[in-house]
């Protein structure tokens, strides 16, 4: 070869450098963005942390007891004294039903009572008369018996007097019975009168509690049936959130546990609460348990039916081995974590315990200080090449 061919001209140099740069860029592109690039992963260390799990449910603000006040028999509404939002006292007159002919029926009953009393008086007089008759007949009978004994008169006459006395006694008994009956009649008529009075009382709809009217469902003039509510009342001091909690997560809930209540009208404010009741009967269709949470203390103003989110705090654990929940994966129906071993992804089954919103307790399978993959840019597979990088936002 001639030495001339070895001379490197600036042009060849540029060309070689350009080619080299192109190849370098090509290789860089293929290994970082192309199909040959390793999957970017974020790695965290298994640490000991405090876990504070919570159970979440949503419900509505409801009254512990709701009262529907209505008539006991069908009728027309005469007047309604209170309106929605009014505070009422126990025993206060809320509304009245139209009595229609009840007053007349009352008057008739009162007359019936008066008549019964008169009838009783008459019967009493009859008793007096019968008594007098009986006494006379007895006296006559006694006298005739004496005359028979002295043989002044025939036995037949004495027997006749004796019969008269017996008949008079019987008439007396009848008169007494009829007098007693007349007395009973007074009782019946009086009871009827009382009954009508009570019906009249029942036409007055009274408040059973100190509370607040939440609904006025019928207006004067409306005909309502027996049992239909005219007014609805609640006790504003006894409001709670009836929350629905997924059965799958409801295991640890117990009465008395503290809870945070967030009302839809105040999304940023967590009101303190307490589990007051866990209903025995769950919702079988939605697979939720019904948990009532009282406000503790009750806020000044609440609105019934408002949506509320409830987070019931569960007993936590101090200083347990844990990983972020995002690190957990499921492969072949095994729960585990991915680890980066020599730049390759490896699946490692673990047993998990308590779970909070953010972290999951590791019962076994990992030691403190070990590193696990928490985020990845792609679905991981065994032996996939991985590289640690900051994924964050793309």
């Amino acid at each position: 070869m001639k030495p001339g061919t070895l001379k490197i001209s600036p042009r060849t140099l540029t060309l070689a450098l350009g080619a080299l740069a192109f190849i370098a860029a090509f290789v860089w592109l293929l290994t970082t963005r192309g199909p040959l690039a390793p999957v970017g992963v974020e790695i965290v260390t298994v640490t000991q942390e405090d876990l504070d799990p919570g159970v979440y449910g949503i419900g509505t603000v409801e009254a512990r007891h709701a009262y529907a006040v209505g008539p006991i028999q069908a009728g027309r509404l005469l007047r309604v004294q209170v309106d929605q939002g009014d505070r009422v006292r126990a025993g206060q007159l809320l509304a009245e039903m139209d009595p229609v002919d009840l007053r007349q029926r009352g008057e008739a009953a009162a007359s019936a009572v008066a008549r019964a009393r008169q009838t009783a008086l008459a019967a009493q007089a009859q008793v007096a008369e019968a008594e007098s008759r009986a006494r006379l007949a007895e006296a006559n009978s006694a006298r005739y018996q004496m005359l028979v004994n002295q043989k002044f008169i025939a036995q037949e006459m004495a027997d006749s007097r004796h019969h008269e006395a017996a008949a008079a006694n019987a008439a007396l008994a009848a008169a007494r019975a009829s007098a007693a009956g007349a007395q009973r009649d007074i009782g019946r008529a009086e009871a009827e009168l009382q009954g009508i009075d009570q019906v009249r009382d029942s036409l007055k709809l009274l408040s059973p509690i100190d509370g607040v009217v939440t609904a006025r469902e019928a207006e004067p003039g409306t005909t309502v049936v027996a049992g239909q509510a005219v007014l609805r009342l609640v006790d504003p001091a006894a409001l709670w959130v009836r929350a629905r909690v997924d059965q799958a997560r409801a295991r640890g809930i117990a009465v008395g546990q503290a809870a945070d209540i967030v009302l839809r009208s105040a999304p940023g404010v967590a009101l303190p609460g307490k589990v007051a009741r866990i209903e025995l009967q769950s919702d079988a269709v939605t697979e939720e348990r019904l948990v009532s949470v009282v406000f503790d203390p009750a806020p000044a103003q609440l609105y019934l039916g408002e949506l509320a989110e409830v987070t019931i705090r569960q007993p936590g654990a101090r200083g347990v081995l844990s990983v972020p929940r995002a690190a957990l994966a499921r492969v072949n129906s095994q729960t585990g974590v991915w680890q980066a071993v020599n730049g390759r992804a490896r699946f490692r089954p673990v047993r998990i315990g308590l779970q909070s919103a953010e972290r999951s307790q590791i019962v076994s399978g990992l030691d403190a200080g070990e590193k696990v993959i928490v985020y990845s840019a792609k679905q991981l597979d065994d032996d996939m090449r991985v590289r640690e990088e900051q994924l964050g936002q793309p």
Partner: protein
Amino acid sequence: MINLAGRDIAHHLKSYLLTGLGLGLLIGVTLTMAGVYRGMVDDAKVLLRAVDADIWVVQQNTLGPFAEPSSVPDDLYRALLGLAGVAQAGNVAYLTMQVSHHGQSQRVMVAGYEQGKPGGPAFLMAGRPISRAHYEAVADVKTGFQVGDIVRIRRNDYTVIGLTRRMVSSGGDPMLFIPLKDAQAAQFLKDNDAIVEDRQRLAANPALNRPGQSGVLDAVQAIQTSSHKVNAVLLRLQPGFDARALADTIARWQRFTAYTRDDMEEILVAKLIATAAKQIGLFLVILAVVSAAIVAFIIYTMTLGKIKEIAVLKLIGTRDRTIAAMILQEALGLGVIGFFVGKFAATLWAPAFPKYVLLETGDAGRAFILTLIVCALASLLAIRAALKIDPAEAIGG
């Protein structure tokens, strides 16, 4: 012996490189088109891979839940869990809807799933998985959401608590995972005005609002707003059980249609995106043919442009073989440069596409071989033309 091709290229280096570059961009477009096609097919399959279900149970005689609407009762899973071989069953609900983000409306596919059951995102890029029973969401990064963002679906605000990637519907819409019960509610929930109007309409109906039977209206209204339907039930099987056999059992005895993973892939790829995929496929074929033709013409005209030089070479007694080798080497060189430039360009711009572009290594390999074959064939034409050149043209002209 000196390398004629090298000498010739060095002589016209700039034009040679520029031709290679142009060729490369053309090849890049073809590669990208192949990537678009592959990406489309991959989009259809990505959800199937992510949920990792062995059997999809849907409404009888439907191709649900993606290709056709499907609705099954949400307590069906209880009956399915009782079948031998079923390890896990999960209800899922899918609905496509617009959500607004920073004032911009965006189309997403909302997927409702139950935690710890099949149907959720397979991995996360940031944040944490859904842990509450309501109002949390995991979004695909393509939605543009960030952890902590609030997204409104129907009338409820959801907090984005995690991000995932490559979770798209078969149509390429990014997905938003929310708890199942919320998805069920969202699917059937009307807007508030419609609800109020419906209530009034019902109350005005004398058949439903009879005097003295105040309970009937409430009952009718309650039944209108509740939903106990889901779109599909996903099953995972215990190891060693045959999905096909179990799917047949479910179809026969439970009276629901059950698809294995392969069936589902077939539905999604062969039915749902069939026309769109064929459209792109045909375009890809045309593009490939046109690219090949252009490559051939470029090489041919390049050779024809060197008639004089070739004539001179012939005149000085260069063998035909040497000339043919020069043309072939130049053509192949162009092909190699073109392919690498194309591959470079395609890889560079592929992530910028709004939908997924999947550049497969196999496709690249095939494209490389195809490019070289086309270049070789085109150079044959050119060689034929070159060999016919009369050496006298070197003097004339």
